């Protein structure tokens, strides 16, 4: 065995040992009580992650290139991660658990955060994401265009005690904030009193309200020697509604965007919460294209969100969704038609190469561009 190979093997062994030491040390009884986040040596990660993108260690940290989407499955279980990260482009970081066959980054619930341009700590609670289990590996699902640089990573390990695991899961899920996703319009995240035991929060609140009802009846009997079911009902009903509302408020307020923004364009640019790259492109296209320009919007195959929403934001400009290979294209809900040669501009969101005759005039990223006919 050559000296170089021996050195490589030693480095690999050292990385594995450091990773194992970090995770095992963090998992010892008592570590949970002080809620310690254990540093994960970044040099232990390259070569041990799974996914569709290379993870490279550089002087800046762990670099993960993102064009479209990138998946990185970390090689250790955890219940919480804190990463100090930045991206040089608009990148959305979603997370979920991976156990067994796969993972579902979009949930529901879909847990995500827009990666900031300047390094900042991002707290990823894996327990409240889809697919978490004590043995599940964290999956980072990156959407956008740019390079994510992780400068430090810390993990809260999974406790060994099954009771502690259940308590950690139940507590996290009970108070987890709601997050806006494509399916939120149809249903909110389910609320469990104890997710580990599948005890619904509604059952517990109803039980508490029933107890209040009975107690109020008893008090009225003791004080007036007669029952006042009306007052007892009012109290119990109020308890039921108020308890649920208090819980809802805790989950709703962190999700709500409460920062007043007067500027319409800034709201479009900044507030597509789960697609910062898209929001930036929509605002750029609105600023770039003149009223009356005939626009074609091009997106990834199967992307139903970006093309339609772009056309909406560009209205009342004539706008169609460009179908590759087609000569005639139509707009939202098939309203309006334009032939390819009638298009003055193309707005492409991960839509691949521009059609012949168009050149980029403004860009958020190389994948999110506004182009005009030459």
């Amino acid at each position: 065995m050559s000296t170089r190979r021996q050195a490589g093997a030693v480095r690999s062994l050292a990385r594995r040992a450091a990773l194992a030491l970090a995770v095992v040390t963090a998992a010892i009884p008592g570590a949970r009580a002080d809620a310690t986040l254990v540093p994960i040596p970044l040099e232990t990660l390259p070569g041990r992650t799974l996914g569709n993108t290379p993870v490279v260690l550089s002087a800046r940290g762990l670099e993960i290139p993102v064009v479209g989407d990138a998946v990185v499955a970390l090689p250790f279980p955890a219940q919480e991660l804190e990463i100090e990260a930045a991206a040089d482009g608009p990148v959305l970081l979603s997370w979920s658990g991976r156990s067994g066959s796969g993972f579902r980054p979009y949930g529901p619930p879909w847990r995500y955060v827009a990666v900031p341009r300047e390094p900042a700590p991002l707290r990823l609670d894996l327990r409240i994401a889809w697919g978490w289990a004590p043995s599940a590996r964290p999956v980072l699902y990156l959407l956008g265009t740019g390079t994510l640089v992780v400068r430090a990573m810390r993990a809260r390990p999974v406790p060994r005690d099954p009771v502690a695991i259940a308590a950690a899961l139940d507590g996290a899920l009970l108070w987890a904030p709601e997050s806006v996703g494509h399916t939120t319009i149809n249903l909110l995240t389910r609320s469990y009193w104890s997710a580990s035991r599948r005890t619904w929060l509604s059952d517990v609140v109803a039980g508490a309200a029933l107890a209040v009802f009975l107690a109020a009846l008893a008090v009225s009997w003791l004080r007036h020697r007669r029952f006042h079911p009306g007052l007892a009902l009012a109290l119990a009903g109020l308890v039921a509604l108020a308890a649920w509302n208090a819980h809802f408020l805790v989950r709703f307020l962190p999700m709500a965007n409460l920062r007043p923004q007067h500027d319409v364009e800034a709201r479009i640019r900044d507030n597509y919460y789960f697609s910062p790259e898209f929001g930036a492109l929509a605002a750029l296209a609105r600023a770039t294209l003149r009223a009356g320009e005939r626009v074609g919007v091009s997106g990834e195959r199967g992307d139903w969100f970006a093309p339609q929403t772009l056309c909406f934001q560009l209205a009342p400009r004539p706008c169609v969704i460009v179908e590759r290979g087609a000569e005639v294209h139509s707009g939202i809900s098939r309203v309006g038609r334009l032939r390819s040669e009638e298009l003055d501009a193309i707005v492409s969101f991960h839509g691949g190469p521009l059609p012949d005759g168009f050149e980029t005039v403004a860009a958020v990223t190389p994948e999110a561009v506004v182009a005009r006919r030459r």
Partner: protein
Amino acid sequence: MTFLVATALFVASGTAIIRVLRLDVRSPLADAALAWLVGSGWFATIAPAMRFGVGLPLSAVGAVLVTLAPVAFWGALGMRRRAAAKTADGAGPLASAPAAPPYRLPRPLWAYLPMIAYVAIVAAAVLLHGVNTPTHTDDGVRVRAFAPMLAFADEWGAEARALFVMAGPIPTFVPALGWMLGGAGDPFHPNYAVLAELVALLFLAVGLPSARGSPERGWSSAFALLSIPLFVYHCTSTYSDAVLAMRVGGGVLLALEYARSRDRRDAERAFLLLGFAALVKREGELVAAVPAALLAAQLAAERLRGRAFPWVALACAAAPVALGAVAKVAAVGLAGAFPMFRVLVVESGLSDAPAAAVHPGLRMQAAAFFFDQALFRSGNAGMIYWVLPVAIVARARALVRSGLVWSLAAVGALLAEVAASSILIVPQYTLDQSTVHRALMVASVPAALWIAAALTDAAAERDGVGERDDGGGGSAARRRRHREGRGTRP
């Protein structure tokens, strides 16, 4: 900014209509709310009827003329009445409802402060988040918020007309007025329109009972209304499900008020709001017809006891429905104008068209899911459907004596309608949870308002008991109603 101007025009228009019809309540909050609901409904009734029925393109000037026509009519009527009053030396012009007493805070204040705080916090959060959040797609395939942009651009090809029928006249035309006035620079107008509906309903819920001496009922209604989590979230979106629920809820709120006040004008206001509710979404007519039919049944039952049936009010409520239908038929033809009726006919086997084959097992699963998850467990409706049956059982005797039973029947019928749709017609959308929870909102909002009414009555019962124990004979409110010749409350 242009949306604020449009709002002022709608409120002016609505104020004129309710003054002409003598349906104002002389309470600034409640009248402003009614004015928005009626004024925007008026515009959404006339604008598509003119555009599709008569074929007149809708310009900014035309839109303003449509909006201000009731104001001009009100002014002309007022001048005529003033002239007549001068010659006859009679009463002042357009005397309507007596002035409301000043507002007061609910009592005991310490008990209501948390509710008021909750209403204020949630309403503020919804307004901010709703204003801040740009439009997303609907169902992954549609952008209903696009319909008002078509009204603004006045581009009505065949596909655009189908979108108008899908969205309904109110979601299509109301957000467009601001754009017509100032150009479509601000794509958030559909958001503002939904939020204006919420503000109007909250104003109505709080303002009307408060103006009648019962702020407790008003704040309870607002609190219950915001106790439906998915409804609260929907108000921050540009979907129309919340708008339909709020329009129907407004009608039921006034029907509940009628149960207490026995004032026929409350029933007439309810009819009017339910008529406009039919102009939201493609299923608006079917949904609004349910509480309107039960209110009509209530009034018909009263006719047997000698009170006149308000045919004029019913005609006023039917007018927007009829004009909306004319606009839809003119836009897409009879076959496409009422897609929900067509679905019902096909499903019931009255049509030759083949119904979607739904396995009976699927319907059973959907039924189980509907009653377990959608109503009670998922949390999308909060605790509304837990409290509702308990309130019915615990207050059964009182309900039988009160007019609330008619509103309860309306809530039950709405729930049955949604259940039939979710279990029999589209069970697959119940099981995949793509529509069931938001379809329920048209029943949940009226149910919440009914619960608030029932619980407020239940809490007030203790006053009556105490006074009976003292040999009293009724609370101050009851004595006041007795003096006014109104009915009793349970």
